[in-house]
């Protein structure tokens, strides 16, 4: 009996030891599965809402949509202006109120259905009809109707002259779906993977919300064949977990988003490269122009003189962002460093003091600045501490920082806040999309800014007859924005992606259009 029991104990111990050895041996000898296939595995902290283009208005879902669908006009690699994709070209009538696009022939959806003008009309009509709570239909606010002129021509009739209509075609509202599959009045749920049909380089083969999206190559794609066999996007809720997965090799690359510190650490990791390209996301400080003390122009101008952009870019973000001197980011046509022209490109306490003294404002001015820790990344705390330090050290301000999590923050900022953090990612890559949302009367920042002169400039910009004329209005708007200072631009972000050494082509796809062109990436 004793011997049997001892034998049993030995067996158990032996099995446990074997199991441990198996774990270690497997870990030591096996390479991550990711490197064995030619399928690219990407990690992201983005989330996906509705894949159906009529039901989403967020960056995370647009990454998925661009794999499956196409626009009439898009941004091929290297192009910064709307270029032919499903259309060969689009032309406006003299009044810029009718845009007619000629469609490419011979294009098919991934299920074999032919692409025609009926699909275009259907796609735009349903976005407006469904009016999804995501707000995507707002991008088509100026669209009166869509008509077809035969199977390969379509006309867009706008309510008011719109010189930038081609840019609207490049947005998520302009993605084309199969009219035989997509209902006119409701969204195709994400669970109906087989119905999420497009003409893009990939088709979606599996989707687990919050976990992964699996893409295989679309054999009916009319463009150049993708350089890989497919893509798997894996979703993470925390960037630290994604960083671990990347260093372990569970994923091949990561696009959106790590903290500045994590990018720095990854850049020093063997076998991993951090790629950086021009970006178009911006961060800025908003002032409520009706609430004291920022209802005083002199106070706003003083803050503009003191903004420590360079310190924020180098010390907080380690060079991953660059100082921004206009709401229109550098690299876009019409950009002017209007804030540098008006207030200098580095903090100037003497000028700040002068403008306050001239206005008879007593100092130090007590000011509460709000920021949020849950929407713009972990570095926001340090960024706003730096702003506080710069303003307080001038002796002209006594800044108190306060924060609130995003849902509370966004609900309260228009009701209570005087100065607050916001960020912007464009709907389309044009200077107009960095002006209309911020400076028109009734703009979304809830800062109560209203200037009829600015409204007039922006209206003229929308109806401009030529590009030079339009760019002229964009420049005028930036100059006036610097003079009124309802908002102080702070920094412009780069487009960043991280890849292991077996992934190629990432650097070439990083451009101001902010599109990760997975179809141009290869894996060795």
């Amino acid at each position, binding site marked *: 009996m004793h011997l049997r029991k001892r034998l049993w104990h030995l067996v158990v111990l032996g099995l446990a030891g074997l199991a441990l050895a198996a774990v270690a041996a497997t870990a030591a000898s096996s390479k991550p599965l990711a490197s064995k296939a030619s399928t690219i*595995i990407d990690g992201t902290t983005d989330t996906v809402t509705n894949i159906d283009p009529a039901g989403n*208005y967020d960056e995370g879902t647009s990454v998925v949509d661009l794999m499956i669908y196409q626009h009439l006009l898009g941004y091929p690699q290297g192009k910064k202006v709307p270029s032919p994709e499903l259309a060969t070209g689009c032309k406006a009538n003299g009044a810029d109120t009718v845009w007619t696009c000629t469609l490419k022939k011979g294009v098919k959806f991934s299920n074999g259905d032919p692409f025609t003008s009926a699909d275009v009309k259907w796609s735009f009509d349903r976005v407006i009809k469904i009016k999804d709570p995501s707000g995507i239909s707002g991008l088509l606010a100026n669209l009166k109707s869509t008509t077809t002129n035969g199977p390969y021509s379509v006309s867009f009739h706008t309510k008011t002259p719109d010189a930038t209509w081609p840019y609207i075609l490049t947005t998520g509202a302009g993605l084309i779906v199969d009219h035989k599959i997509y209902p006119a009045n409701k969204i195709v749920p994400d669970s109906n993977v087989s119905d999420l049909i497009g003409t893009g380089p990939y088709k979606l083969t599996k989707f*687990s919300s919050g*976990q992964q999206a699996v893409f295989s190559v679309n054999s009916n794609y009319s463009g150049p064949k993708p350089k890989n066999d497919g893509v*798997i996007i894996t979703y993470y809720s925390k960037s630290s977990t994604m960083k671990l*997965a990347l*260093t372990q090799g*569970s994923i091949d690359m990561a696009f959106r988003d790590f903290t500045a510190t994590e990018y720095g650490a990854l850049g020093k990791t063997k076998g991993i490269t951090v790629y950086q390209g021009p970006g178009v996301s911006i961060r800025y400080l908003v002032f409520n122009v009706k609430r004291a003390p920022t209802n005083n122009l002199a106070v706003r101008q003083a803050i503009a003189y003191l903004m420590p952009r360079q310190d924020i870019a180098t010390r907080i973000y380690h060079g991953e962002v660059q100082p921004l001197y206009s709401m229109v980011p550098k690299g876009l046509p019409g950009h002017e460093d209007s804030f540098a022209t008006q207030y200098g490109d580095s903090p100037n306490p003497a000028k700040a003091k002068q403008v306050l003294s001239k206005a008879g404002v007593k100092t130090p001015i007590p000011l509460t600045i709000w920021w949020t820790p849950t929407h713009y990344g972990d570095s926001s705390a340090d960024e706003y501490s730096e702003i506080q330090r710069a303003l307080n050290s001038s002796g002209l301000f006594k800044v108190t920082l306060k924060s609130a999590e995003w849902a509370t923050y966004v609900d309260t900022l228009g009701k209570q806040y005087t100065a607050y953090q916001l960020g912007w990612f464009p709907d389309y890559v044009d200077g107009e999309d960095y002006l209309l949302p911020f400076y028109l009367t009734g703009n979304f920042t809830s800062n109560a800014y209203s200037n009829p002169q600015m409204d007039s400039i922006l209206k003229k910009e929308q109806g401009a007859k030529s590009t030079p004329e339009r760019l002229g209005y964009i420049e005028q708007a930036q100059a006036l924005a610097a003079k009124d200072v309802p908002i102080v631009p702070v920094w412009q972000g780069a487009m960043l992606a991280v890849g292991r050494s077996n992934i190629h082509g990432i650097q070439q796809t990083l451009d101001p259009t902010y599109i990760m062109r997975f179809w141009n990436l290869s894996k060795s």
Partner: protein
Amino acid sequence: MSQGSSLKQYALTRLGLVVPMVFVVLTIVFLLMRVAPGNPVDAALGGHAPQAEINRITKQLGYDKPLYVQYGKYLWDVVRLHLGSTISDRRSVSNIIEVNGAATLELTFFAMLVAIVVGVSVGLISGRFRDSPVDAGGRLFGILVYATPVFFLGLLAQLVFGVWLNWLPTSDQASPITQALLQTHTNILFVDAIIDGNWSALWDVTQHLILPATTLGIVYGGVFIRLIRVNVIRTLKEDYIEAARARGIGERNVVYRHAFRNALVPVVTVIGLQLALLLGGAVLTETTFNWPGLGHYLVLYIENRDYAAVQGITVVIALVIVAVSLLIDFVNAFIDPRVRY
């Protein structure tokens, strides 16, 4: 009153108490979500869309209606088991319960296994060798693991086994390729891999389970260590144990065949109570290991003020805990007639 009717009355009374219990939970969750500033529309569109558009969509979704109207609709939907769909990612709440609930079930099942194995074995040895260095070590281990925050232990485990030793994966239910290729049957990947006969997938899933299940299980095993130890010590002092020793039964048999079995009885109750804590700990563990369970998603939906999702998930978790507590109470009442009304 006969034993049978007494048990029946107890069961009916406990069942009857479930309804007001769940009603209170539903109401508290509803009020807490509405009291917090912000709503799903603000969270999704704030900072990007004009206020007029946000107001239009808020009205479209009914969030501008008086609180009592929203509450009435909410209760009516719950009664009809109409849990609705989330705002932030447009999933049906029942789909979340089905898919992500399965992931939580997988994690908590294996975590509970670890908790029982570790807790029982260490507790038994500590009780057997009372006041020895082995006992001291066991007790210290029990206190340490129970006092350690589960997310800290998880991060430590990731660092040691994932980064330094590179033995185990640090996140997710399975590798991306395995997840992409595995057929979905039950949404519990461990079971799905067995159903498919896909042994490499099963090994992959098991590797991914080890760190999160062990982390969560060890923390709650600390409770079992102390409980088993105390019960073993108490049972070893019983008269029938003395009688067994007097009859010449070996000490090993006395401990493992007599004392140990009786010491386990109260543990059944504690397992049920620990389940509630385990589900709470699962929230932190799932977030640390990117495990796609209910706890992980609950945190995301709370941040997004997704009323439907938070209400639905909380109701289901509350019902699960109530059901398990009921089951434990019935078992106890069946075993011990003193536990009755």
